[in-house]
């Protein structure tokens, strides 16, 4: 790839930042240059973010119907799946999935709730009192 061919698509996900990369200058020598992002990169990133957003919306709906706990919704909002969340919490995956059950969630100890709140970057209150509206 030549320096003149480096994509400069100003993609949203990079928020105006630039990334460094190596490309050929006009004399055929490699040089360090920068890019404001590539559209292909944005497409695949938006794809996974949209997937998580959809899962979070759908989970929020189920939280209000008392079919799951807020933990599942916050998990998707922070781009995680049950296994990743379990690893971040230092728990087994089945434990995290069990915490999705509203009845189990209601009886969770402060220590576990605090740890979930820390990982999600929210207060324990926000975790316990899931809003009825978005």
């Amino acid at each position, binding site marked *: 790839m030549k320096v003149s061919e480096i994509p400069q698509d100003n993609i949203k996900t*990079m928020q105006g930042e630039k990334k460094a990369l*190596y*490309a050929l200058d006009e004399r055929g020598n*490699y040089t360090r240059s920068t890019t404001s992002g590539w559209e292909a990169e944005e*497409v695949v990133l938006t794809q*996974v973010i949209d997937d998580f957003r959809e899962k979070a919306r759908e989970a929020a709906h189920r939280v209000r119907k008392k079919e799951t706990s807020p933990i599942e919704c916050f998990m998707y909002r922070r781009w995680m799946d049950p296994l990743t969340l379990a690893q*971040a919490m230092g728990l087994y995956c089945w434990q995290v999935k069990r915490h999705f059950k509203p009845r189990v969630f209601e009886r969770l100890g402060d220590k576990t709730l605090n740890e979930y709140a820390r990982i999600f970057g929210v207060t324990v209150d926000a975790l316990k009192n899931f809003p009825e509206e978005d």
Partner: protein
Amino acid sequence: MADTRPMEHRQYAHCESGVVTALLRNKGLDLSEPMVFGITGGLTFAYLPFIKITNLPIIAYRMFPGSIIRGAVKNLAVDFKTKRYRDKREALAELTRLVDGGTAVGLQTSVYWLPYFPPEMRFQFNAHNLIVYGREGEEFLVSDPVFEHTVRIKTDDLQNARFAKGTLAPKGFIYYPIRVIPSVDFRAVIRKSIKRTVHMMLYAPMPFIGIKGIRCLARRIERLDPRKDAKAVRLFLGHIVRMQEEIGTGGGGFRFMYAAFLQEAGQLLDSPPLGEASRMMTEAGDMWRLFALACARVCKSKTADFNLGEIAELLRKCAAQEKLVYLLLKNSPLPKSSSAPAGPC
């Protein structure tokens, strides 16, 4: 320490090679990032269907986290002090002591906890490397090699980032060079590291590493069934590109970085075949970009009538092109080490 220069921030293409390059430069060993990447044997391809992140397999375009540091120790005879911690407070106390004493250190961190990253990028990825070079009150001064400018981070955030749990958990990993040898025989080192990379890419005994790994992934793509679950196919293809772009360095970036290494090595060793290998590797990088573009098109398409055979074919072209590069490197003997050690420039 008399041989330590004041920290100067530079932007690099990849976090680990960037941190190691910057730390070595700071210590008086001035190499380019591609040189460090090449010498430490950073290039690879691995498709690991049995290790999953968010339910999708790991596809690595470079060696596992930590290998560039280990490679620098092994191939450049640099002494790195490395340490992991059980105790968070001990880790913080030691970091504070080091940076207050003027030592710039490399840290392994989790992107999820770094507030200066764009929110869309903050996934649970535990192997991001950065440099801490100073402290002002409760904030640490950070030179993050993938950012244009230096940043700051609060102690709490840094502690969270250093002690995130999960795959590749950093456990507070800290590293800094304590001794460098500027008179390394670069000819011998380059020869050895190219040989090792070539051997791995061509003859790794497992079917998911190197050229075989690329072909293995191509077969996997062909076996996907868009009629059964078009969304899953899109997510899988998107995932391959994300592993290449976002966790990588942009558009087959590691291939371009290796091409840059081969070019520099060719000039240093005065070896035309290395220059030729560099040009061919550049073509391989361009092919990876075409493959990424094709995958992105599928991700964007609303219909399920995309041709997976064509995409697999693009991937096989990457494999074929890379194979040519490695065979050329294998069959062109490089000059043996010279009597006088050559400098890096």
